[in-house]
């Protein structure tokens, strides 16, 4: 899965949590908890969705790495690469 595809998935799941938000205009480096008014219950729902979609289980200690779109995309790419045992994902 490319980083573009991962990013699209991340945005799609965030949109489900915050349907009223203009997700495409979200600053990729801003904290989604502040930008989208996401609380711990929303974050757990987000992590659960990522697990269901990608098979990546994000431990609580890594939550700080997934609270921006860019950080989350990088993190998931890294984890998927580890799962595949094939190094970093393709794409930008």
């Amino acid at each position, binding site marked *: 899965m490319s980083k573009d595809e991962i990013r699209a998935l991340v945005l799609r799941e965030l949109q489900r949590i*915050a*349907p*009223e938000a203009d997700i495409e205009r979200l600053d990729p480096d801003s904290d989604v908890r502040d930008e989208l*008014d996401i*609380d*711990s*219950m929303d974050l*757990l*729902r987000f*992590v*659960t969705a990522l*697990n269901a979609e990608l098979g990546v*289980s*994000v*431990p*609580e200690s890594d939550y700080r790495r997934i609270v921006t779109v860019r950080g989350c995309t990088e993190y998931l790419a890294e984890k998927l690469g580890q799962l595949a045992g094939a190094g970093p994902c393709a794409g930008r």
Partner: protein
Amino acid sequence: MAEFLMPSLGADMEAGTLVKWRRAAGDRVERDDVIAEVETEKGIVEVEVFSSGIIERLLVEPGQRVPVGTPMAILREERGAATSPAEAARTPPSPPPAAAAAPAAPAAAPPPSPVQGPRVSPRGRRRAQELGVDLAQVHGSGPDSVIEAADVERAATAAAAPKDAAARMRRAIAAAMARSKREAPHFYLGTTIDVGAALTWIERENAARSVTARILPTALLLKAAALSLREVPELNARWEGDEAPPSPRIHLGVAVSLRGGGLVAPALHDADRMPLGDLMAALKDLVQRARAGTLRSSEMSDPTITVTSLGERGVETVFPVIFPPQVAIVGFGKIAERPWVTGGHLAPRPLVNATLAADHRVTDGHRAAAYLTSIDALLQRPEEL
């Protein structure tokens, strides 16, 4: 035969609009089946039926706005389907509030009148003419439900209010909170609780759980708040007339902020009896449905106490207002590391401020203090929650 009535889904509800029927005339329904969707000031609610039988007749059309207590359908009950005492407690809707209902939307047909034409005081009739209020839409609060001038004035105010959902919700919250502050003499207590043991336990527990089964600290706080009500049951009550008998079951109202603004506080039923994992699953489901607008009527009408947590908004201490007719509300602030002295040593510890607002007509500071002390003690033994 039994009447299926427009339920009261909170002390602030005066009327509701039928959005749609989920069942048709002639359908068999079982107790707890959702048979209608009703729009209230707090969003759309799925309304359950509290007895089993056959729907004989539907009396209200989608789009109609009718006062609380209005018959919406006739149900032919099955023989031997008498309700148990516990069910009976849920069956009758709360008495309709004294305030009048807002008139139906212009496009809606007039709802069937539950009474044989309104009885109106002379002054009430005069005010209705002056304000252009349709008396058929006004609920009387006088003796024998006679419509008084004040009822007409309330109806006129309600009709003039903004109709968009957020504004209506704000109006409902305003009415409930103003009533609470007017009628319930609040007193407040607070304590700081070391949640180090609780957080350590959660961290260890979550490491062994799947993502879907993870527990949030909120679940622990809610369970401790629920269990402590067994020690101080007078806080788990609803004000009725001039007394507040303790409720036999503990239904925690959980304050949930909505994305469009406003909040609801639906019930986590029997929160004291649920294992922590089940409570967490029920909480996740409740929050998601509250935000999606698919709560059930029993969840709106059953809370016996409310818990509000504003810690995630960075707030350290909450001073909440009791949601009537409940007699207490618990507030939790942010869990944060702060200096704390334990065994004569100063150390950083994760702390949370717990507050309680209670109705002084029902209890006093001594008992309320015992409640907060119990929450503290339970959070020191998280494995027992």
